[in-house]
């Protein structure tokens, strides 16, 4: 064996010994790591399921608690910020008419009242959103009475506390809009009692229960599809690139859940050339 052959043999051997094991060991490690990751993902998967928004492209979930948080904040506002005022302009009167008593007839001449909102309570049910609205009603009315002894005019203070309930519930919309109705269900009556002294005729006590109109108070329409155009500007290296896009968002009907309101939508993004 001459020196040339010996050199060639040694260099071949060294190269083979150096390179072979490196590649093999690392490859096996990668395979092992992949297997471990697959097992870990499988273990985590069921724990993440209850976050899922299904096949929707975007999802918004607003917790019942945050809605109540807003209402609580509203209840903490100064009284003037949560007070509604009512002033009478006319009355289909009388509010009392009698042939048998000394008081023949009572008409309301003036009426002013204010309604102070308390702490509303929100409850989301699967068929809609229930809102209990406690309030304090206080007011003053001027009555004109027709009695056997004359026509006295008296001022009467009155007040009451009540808590009617309103519902926001889904209704049948059209092709382009979802519809929601703000309604009251069943009979809801606010008891109001006012009493005034009518001199020799004694005390006049009036029960004036206010009946809230049943049915739909307000209709709300929300578009099902929103279109938005925009531009995405980005910089790669030194180049500034700008592309225009159109986004179409098609909402699904809102899901009322005890834990919150769930909105989902499908989105289509189109890039302009």
């Amino acid at each position, binding site marked *: 064996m*001459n020196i*040339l052959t010996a050199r*060639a043999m040694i*260099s*071949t051997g060294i*190269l*083979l010994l150096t*390179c072979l094991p490196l590649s093999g060991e*690392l490859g096996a490690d*990668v395979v092992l790591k992949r297997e*471990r*990751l697959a097992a870990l*993902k499988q*273990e*985590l998967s069921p724990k*993440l399921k209850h*976050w899922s*928004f299904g096949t*929707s*492209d*975007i*999802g*918004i*979930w*607003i*917790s019942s*608690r*945050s809605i109540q*948080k*807003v209402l609580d904040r509203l209840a903490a*506002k100064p009284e*003037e*910020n949560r*007070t*509604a*005022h*009512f*002033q*009478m*302009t006319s*009355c*289909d009167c*009388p*509010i009392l*008419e009698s042939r048998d008593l000394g008081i023949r007839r009572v008409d309301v001449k003036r*009426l002013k009242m204010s309604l102070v909102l308390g702490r509303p309570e929100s409850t989301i049910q699967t068929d809609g959103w229930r809102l209990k609205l406690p309030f304090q009603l206080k007011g003053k009315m001027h009555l004109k009475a027709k009695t056997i002894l004359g026509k006295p005019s008296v001022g009467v203070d009155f007040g009451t506390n009540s808590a009617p309930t309103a519902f926001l519930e889904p209704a049948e919309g059209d092709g382009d809009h979802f519809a929601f109705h703000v309604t009251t269900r069943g009979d809801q009556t606010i008891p*109001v009692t006012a009493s005034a002294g009518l001199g020799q005729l004694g005390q006049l006590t009036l029960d*004036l*229960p206010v009946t809230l*109109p049943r049915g739909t108070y307000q209709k709300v329409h929300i578009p099902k599809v929103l279109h938005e155009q925009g531009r995405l500007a*980005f*910089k*790669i*290296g*030194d180049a500034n690139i700008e*592309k225009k*896009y159109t986004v179409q968002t098609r909402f699904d009907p809102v899901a009322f859940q005890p*834990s919150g309101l769930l909105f989902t939508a499908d989105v289509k*993004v189109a*890039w302009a050339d």
Partner: protein
Amino acid sequence: MKKFAIILTIIALVALTWALSGDTENEIERLEWRQLKKQEDRLYKLADFLVRHPDPRKASDLHLFFSRDVINDILAGTKETKVALPKTEGLVLTWKHLEVDFDQYAPSVVAEAQVTKEGSSLQVDAAVRTQLHIHANPGGETAELKIEIHEIVPRARWSIFKLELKWLAGKLLALNHHELATIDLNYEIPLDWQTTLSVDGEKKPLSFEVERGRIHGDLTLPALSQPARWSLRQWFFLPDGLHLFLDLNLEEP
């Protein structure tokens, strides 16, 4: 004996070529292993978080979700744009495909590109390992969105007959992320999203029944205004998309 020496020399040359390409393949496998290790760490962190908070919704006011398809549809807008790679004497990278790999449980972006040498027909396809980088200053109200290119892994198989490809692949592998480009999406993500819930005051006619009559009048409703601030509490890249959990703060300013 001479013949034997020549054969051994040829074997040595082939082994050398194989060794060099093996070295490059080892480098690619190392990158792969490193990527898998990072993913494993993130999965353990998520598993640990889920033990402590099995339902993050319970502690949050708002849960926002953007599916992987929507985010990747937006990233698709970067297709066919070109980047001149720094310090590489005319190498240009053209994006062919860019998407967030949500299976990584991290804002990891998988990108396919083609690298060409200007003024020559030399080109190689490459997998570009990138990271969607969300940078927020402490106490800041927005985060900046950037895609940082970390590694470029050539996909070509080379041989002794394609030494120029080997050269190109070597150039790409030699780049480190400090020298590589950044895609600045010029997009600011609000971490604190402020809004005002407001109701205008109004005067509207109202009539209601009393026992023996009906009263008509005007109802004046107060104007209401409440500042609301949504703050990002937590975000997760999960296989189905990006999940954001926000808190609602209703303190007066």
